[in-house]
C-alpha cells in the first residue's frame, strides 16, 4: 500500500468515526423523539422519530464500517496522524489555504454587516488580491473597485437586494 493510500485510510478512520458518532447521536435523538411526551397522541408509524432512527442508524453503521476499513487500511491511524499533521502544517499549499480561509472568515464574520457593504467588499477583495499577489497595486484597486460597483449595481439596484 502506498503512502497516499495509507494516509487516506487514516483520514477514513477518523472521518468514519465522526460519521458513526453523528449517526449514533441522530439515532438516539430519534428514539427520544419517538418517546417524546408531546407526540403521544401521534400514531406510532407517523412519528418523526421513525425516519430519524432509520437514517441515524444507517449513518452510524456506514460510519462504523468506514472507520473499520480505515483502521485496517492504515494499521496505525494514530501514529500515522501524528506523523502526517506536522508534515501537512509545513506545506505552503496548506498555509495558503489557511490564509484564504481566514480571509473569508474575516469578511463573513467581522466585516459583513458591521461596515457598509461597498467598503467591506472592497477591503476584502483588495486584501485578498494583495495577499495572493494578483498584480500591481493599482490594478488590484481598479479590479476591486469595478467588481464592487458591478455587484452593487446588479444585486443592490437591479435585483433590489437590501445590501448591508
Amino acid at each position, binding site marked *: 500500500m502506498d503512502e497516499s493510500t495509507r494516509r487516506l485510510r487514516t483520514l477514513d478512520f477518523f472521518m468514519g468515526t465522526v460519521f458513526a458518532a453523528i449517526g449514533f447521536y441522530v439515532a438516539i435523538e430519534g428514539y427520544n423523539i419517538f418517546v417524546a411526551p408531546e407526540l403521544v397522541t401521534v400514531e406510532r408509524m407517523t412519528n418523526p422519530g421513525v425516519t430519524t432512527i432509520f437514517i441515524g442508524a444507517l449513518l452510524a453503521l456506514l460510519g462504523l464500517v468506514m472507520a473499520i476499513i480505515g483502521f485496517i487500511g492504515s494499521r496505525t491511524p494514530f501514529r500515522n496522524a501524528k506523523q502526517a499533521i506536522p508534515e501537512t502544517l509545513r506545506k505552503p499549499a496548506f498555509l495558503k*489555504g489557511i490564509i484564504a480561509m481566514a480571509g473569508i472568515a474575516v469578511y463573513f464574520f467581522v466585516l459583513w454587516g458591521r461596515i457598509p457593504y461597498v467598503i467591506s467588499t472592497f477591503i476584502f477583495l483588495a486584501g485578498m488580491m494583495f495577499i495572493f499577489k494578483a*498584480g500591481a497595486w493599482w490594478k488590484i484597486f481598479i479590479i476591486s473597485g469595478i467588481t464592487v460597483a458591478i455587484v452593487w449595481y446588479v444585486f443592490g439596484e437591479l435585483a433590489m437586494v437590501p445590501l448591508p
Partner: protein
Amino acid sequence: MSFEQIVLEVLKTLTLEFILLIAAATFIGLIIGALPGLTTTMGIALLTGITFKFSGHAAIALLLGLYVGGVSGGSLSAVMIGIPGTAANAASVLDGFPLAMAGKGAKAITVSRSASIMGTLFGILCLAFFTPILSDLALKFTSAEFFLIGLFGVLISGTMTGADLPMKGWISGFVGLTIALIGIDELTAYHRFTFDSPQLTSGLPFIPIMIGFFGIPQVIESLSSEQDVLVAKLDRAKTKLSEILQHWKVALRSGLIGVGIGVIPGIGEDVAAWVSYGVAKKASKHPEEYGKGSIEGLVAAETADNSCIGGAIIPLLSLGIPGSPPAAVLLGAFLIHGVRPGPMLSFEFPAFVYQAVSWLLVATLFMRFMALWLARPMQKILTIKNAVLMPIVTVLCAIGAYSLDIRYIDIVLVFFAGILGILFRKGKYPPAPLVLGIVLGPLVDVNLRRALKASNGDISIFFTRPIALVLVVSIIVLILAQLGVFEAITSKFRRMRQSTI
C-alpha cells in the same frame, strides 16, 4: 389540454423578453462553465438569488439557459487550456486539448460545439417524449414507491460517483438525508434538531448550503495552488459539417448513454461523459488515437454530457427527483418559484414540460452561435489569475446566499458548508449524493411514514407491490454487488468447477 392550447401556452413564454433572458443566461452559463473553478451547479445556485424578483417561469427559463450554457462552456477551457471548466468536460480534455495544441483549436471547438448541440437536442427530444410517459407511470406510485425511489437514488448516486469507495458515496448521501431532517416535521409539526433556534425551524436552506459546499472548497483549492495556464492558439480553419456527421453512430450511442445516465438520480454529466468515452474507445476501430486528439473521442464525451441535461430533467419534472447535481439545485429553485415538480406538475402546469423544452431549444440555438464567437475573447479571460478570480467568487458566494432571504445566517451557513465541502474533498467523499440526500430527504422521510401508516405498520407493503418489489430487489442487488458478494460467489463456483474437473 389540447395541442392548440399547449402551443398557445408555449408561445406565451417565448416572448422577446424570455428569449433575451435565455440568451443572457446561456452567455453567462458559457462563461461560468468555461472558467475553471466555477461549476454549473454553483452558477445555478448563485443566479437563483438574482431570479428571486422574476416571475416563476422567467426564472426557470433563465436557469435552464444557464444549465445548457454551463455544460457546453466547460468544453471551451477543456480544449483551450486543458483544464475542464466543469467536471462534465473532464473527458473532453483528453482529445480536445491535444487537437488544439496541434494547431487545430478552431476545429476542436467546432467539433465539441456541434457534439454539444447534437447531445442537447437529443436530450431535449427524449425529455419531450419520456417525461409525460414517466409522469403517467408515476401517478400509480404510492408512498412506498416514492420512499424506495428516494433511497435507491441516494444509494445509486453514491455507488456511481464514489471515486474511492462506494461506501463513501453512501455516507455522503446519508449525511445529506440527515441534514434534511433539520426543521419542522411536515406531518406532525414537531421541531427536529432545531435546538430552539427560530432560524432552524424551516430547515437548512438548500441554496446557501450548495453555494458553500461547492464554492468555498474551490476558492481555497484554487488559491492554494496557483498554476500557470497554457492557452492554445486558435487557427482560422473551417470544419466541414460532414466531418462531424460521419461520427453519427458515436453521437447517437453517446446520446443514449447520456440520457440513460441522466435519468438515474443524482449521477450527472461527468459520469455520462466518462462512460460514453470509455464505450466509444472500446468500440472504436482506432482506439490508439484516443487521448491524442481523436475527433471521435471528443464527439463521444461532448454528446454524452450534453444529452445528460435532458435526461437529468426527465425524472426531475416527472418524479420530482433530480438526475444530476445541477438538476438538484434547479429543483430548489423551482420550489422557491412555486413550481413543484413531480407527477402532479402535469395537472398544475399542463404545458410546463413543453415550455421547458422550448426554453432549452432556444438556449441550444444561442449556444450554437455564442460558443465559437466566445472562443477568441475566452483566450484572454482564461488567463485571469486565480488570485483575481477567486476573491470575486467568494463575494458572489456571500451575496448569492444572502440575497435569497436577506438573512445573515445564510452567510454563516455558506462558511460552514464550505468547511464540510473541504473535508469531503480531502476524504474523497463525492458531493453529488449529499446534494441528492438533502433534496430527497423530505420525500424519503414523509413517504416512509405514510407507507407504514397506510399498511398499519406492516413492512410487507415494500415487497408486495410490483414496482416496490423491483426497487427493493434493485437496492439489495446494488448493495450486495458493492460488498463483493457476487464476485465471491462467482469465484467459489469457479473453484468448485475446477476441483470437480
